[in-house]
């Protein structure tokens, strides 16, 4: 149930979304009924999991998932050694057509991947014929792309990115083409520029991050353990959000292409942050796999109340609002000195600020003998803010010196 009926619609590459939230190309979109359930729940769209031509062999292994937990909380990052969908274009084109028929007001996008020009273009033609709204091209499957450089990600080659994007765009007569890239490159801006040179309409930033999820120290086998061996996973989930934000900001500041964000959002707050650094729509996966499709209610209400409270008329009004506030390090202000200050009534006397300042800061915090409250030495404190970040009780804040 949602409690705020505000209109949250937004346009992306000329396609109308009833809200900025959609499911990314991932396990939650690899089944017709799961996508139906998501649309029923209120998601504006879904990118069906990456499909391929019928001759492509998709050889999955199980188990495929593992996670990095942190401090008692599950799934800071989710690792997956999944491949593209086992469902080929013959199945997916039918699903797309069915979904469009049943949910004409929802956006049906399909992710696809080919191994040569003919395949990329055939996939485009068949998806357009099936009535999809958007074509997304996976240039960034963490297990590697097919074709010219098998095992390497297409989006790691500027030349290949531009060329293949061009093939797809050449074949697309009706649908906007979105290229999904990887954050695992030396210069994300150059990749985005290659996408633009190739003629694509938008960027999906960004795919999972190639990772080794952990190692079992008893068996020496990393996770996930597939009969005593393992491999690198693509990591998604909340741990990746800051990387996504940086990716989005860099592209937005340098390249004039609309962006659909993916990589780590869980809450409306995360989504708003992504929009503030340039995303138009936000794709979700791990949060849905963890908490269920009905988190769309939380997202819709949260965004609606945010817009209402801030006085924005529509979601599009917040896109890129944080970008002017991102500058190079050299341009940051050196003029105003700040130091940390204690809000006494909140302090629970855990001493974490003291330890952090002593061993990771500037020895500017003492513990008062009488009552163990931290005392900040105004002269020694340079204002690094480490103490504020470790305080579990929000009892420290930064003030002007």
């Amino acid at each position: 149930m949602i409690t705020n009926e505000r209109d949250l619609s937004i346009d992306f590459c000329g396609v109308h979304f009833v809200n900025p939230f959609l499911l990314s190309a991932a396990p939650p979109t690899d089944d017709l009924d799961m996508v139906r359930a998501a649309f029923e729940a209120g998601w504006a769209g879904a990118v069906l999991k990456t499909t391929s031509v019928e001759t492509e062999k998709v050889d999955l292994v199980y188990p495929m998932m593992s996670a990095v937990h942190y401090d008692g909380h599950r799934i800071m990052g989710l690792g997956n050694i999944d491949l593209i969908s086992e469902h080929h274009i013959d199945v997916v084109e039918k699903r797309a057509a069915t979904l469009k028929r049943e949910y004409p007001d929802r956006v049906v996008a399909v992710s696809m991947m080919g191994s040569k020009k003919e395949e990329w273009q055939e996939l485009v033609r068949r998806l357009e014929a099936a009535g999809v709204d958007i074509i997304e091209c996976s240039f960034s499957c963490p297990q590697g792309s097919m074709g010219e450089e098998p095992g390497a990600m297409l989006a790691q080659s500027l030349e290949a990115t531009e060329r293949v994007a061009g093939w797809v765009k050449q074949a697309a007569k009706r649908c906007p083409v979105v290229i999904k890239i990887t954050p695992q490159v030396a210069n994300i801006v150059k990749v985005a520029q290659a996408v633009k040179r190739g003629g694509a309409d938008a960027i999906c930033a960004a795919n999972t991050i190639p990772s080794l999820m952990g190692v079992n120290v008893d068996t020496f086998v990393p996770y996930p353990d597939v009969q005593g061996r393992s491999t690198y996973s693509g990591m998604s989930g909340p741990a990746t959000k800051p990387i996504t934000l940086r990716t989005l900001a860099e592209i937005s500041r340098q390249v004039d292409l609309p962006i659909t964000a993916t990589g780590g959002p869980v809450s409306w707050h995360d989504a708003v942050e992504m929009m503030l650094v340039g995303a138009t729509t936000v794709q979700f996966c791990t949060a849905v796999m963890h908490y269920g499709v009905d988190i769309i209610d939380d997202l819709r209400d949260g965004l609606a109340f945010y817009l209402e409270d801030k006085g924005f008329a529509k979601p599009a009004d917040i896109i890129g609002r944080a970008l002017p506030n991102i500058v190079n390090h050299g341009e940051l202000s050196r003029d105003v000195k700040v130091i940390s200050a204690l809000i006494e009534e909140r302090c629970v006397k855990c001493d974490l600020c003291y330890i952090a300042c002593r061993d990771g800061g500037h020895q500017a915090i003492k513990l008062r003998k009488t009552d163990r409250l931290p005392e900040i030495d105004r002269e020694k404190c340079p204002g690094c803010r480490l103490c504020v970040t470790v305080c579990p009780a929000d009892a420290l804040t930064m003030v002007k010196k």
Partner: protein
Amino acid sequence: MSEAACARVSVLTDTQAQLEASRCLMCEDSPCVAACPARVPVKHFIRALRFESPRRAINLIREQNVFAGVCGLACPVDRLCEGACSSTELSMPIQIGRLQHYAAETALRAGWKSRATPRTGQKVAIIGGGPSGLAAAAELARCGHRPTVFEKSPRPGGICTYGVPAHRVPQELVAGEVEYVKSLGVEIKPSSPLGDGTTLDALLAQGYRAVYVAAGAQQAAAVPIPGADLPGVTTWKQLLNAFSAFKLGEGPKPDVPQNVIIVGGGSVAMDVASAALQLGAAEIDMVCLEAPREMPADRNELDEVWAAGARFHTRSTPIEITGTGGKVTGLKVARIRWKEPDKFIPSNAVRIAGTEYWLPGAMVVFAIGAKPSPELAKLLTGVKLDASGRIVIDPETGATSRPGVFAGGDVAAGGGMTIVRAVAEGKRAGQAIDAYLRGGVS
């Protein structure tokens, strides 16, 4: 009404609420919801808190329970939502009551307004401005009707205002939640007792298309033992009413002697003990039929009263109130055993011969429940009452024997009422009245 309210009125900080919400497992089955009489969507409101949308959280709660904050503090959560919590198996239950209280206080502080519903509907009279009456009124207003609440006391809130002591549920919180109900489009007429001009027939003649009777249980029970008519013998209702009125500045400070004897083992008895202590009593003796683990009182409340120094005379029954010169001097009690196991009702208690003893005290307070006022029958023509004077209702809808007349809360309950149950019955009746009005049946 037995309300388990322990002294936990401090509001969680944002950080504490985040920490607690992040412990919630958010189970699909949500046994906490099934255990809530008002069916508050616990999982979803906690998830909304966790994912930083407190406005969504309070909206979800208020949709089911307009007394979100009051119930967060006053609900016997260990027997309801928290008692069912899946996290118990891992460590301890999520503090659902405190999170709900936090959401309510956050909303009141921020002044978040309700969305106005267009007033197109019909006039409905609500008799009684307690939790059940106000919940019914809120639901009717949301359905577009025009409810008017007739409250006998100067302030609305019923048991929340004049029963549960302010140290358990602050009056500002009660008042804030009553204001929220008003903001939905509910008219409240205070100091409007049922009487000559406001009988059921008169209200219906004035154009009210339906009536919800939530007049509560105004006559507190006492054990009919020798000496029960002495001055100095009183009931929980009188003492807590007077205590609340004093706290609200509506009445004088009630006189309480040094030694007070309280009969009863529920949360109300604990409230009476707390009130007596605050009013200056030094010695408290609690007398009840149940053994400690059989007592219905909330554990935290019981612990507080015990820790404050009250003596507990458990598995005991009062047999005579002693007095000299028209003044109470004490209470004779005797030990009991249960005839049948696990049946903790007076008729199942057997006195053990030769165990009588005497407790000194200048005041005896009965805190053993209440039933509706006997005058109600005259004012509710055509409405069937049971032998104890309670209104007979359809448990699903609250419908009485008279078409268009509904009832709920203490006025219709056989016992075991709580604020949250009263709210739930009020909401259900509000929906049933809406259906009745839309059906156009009279």
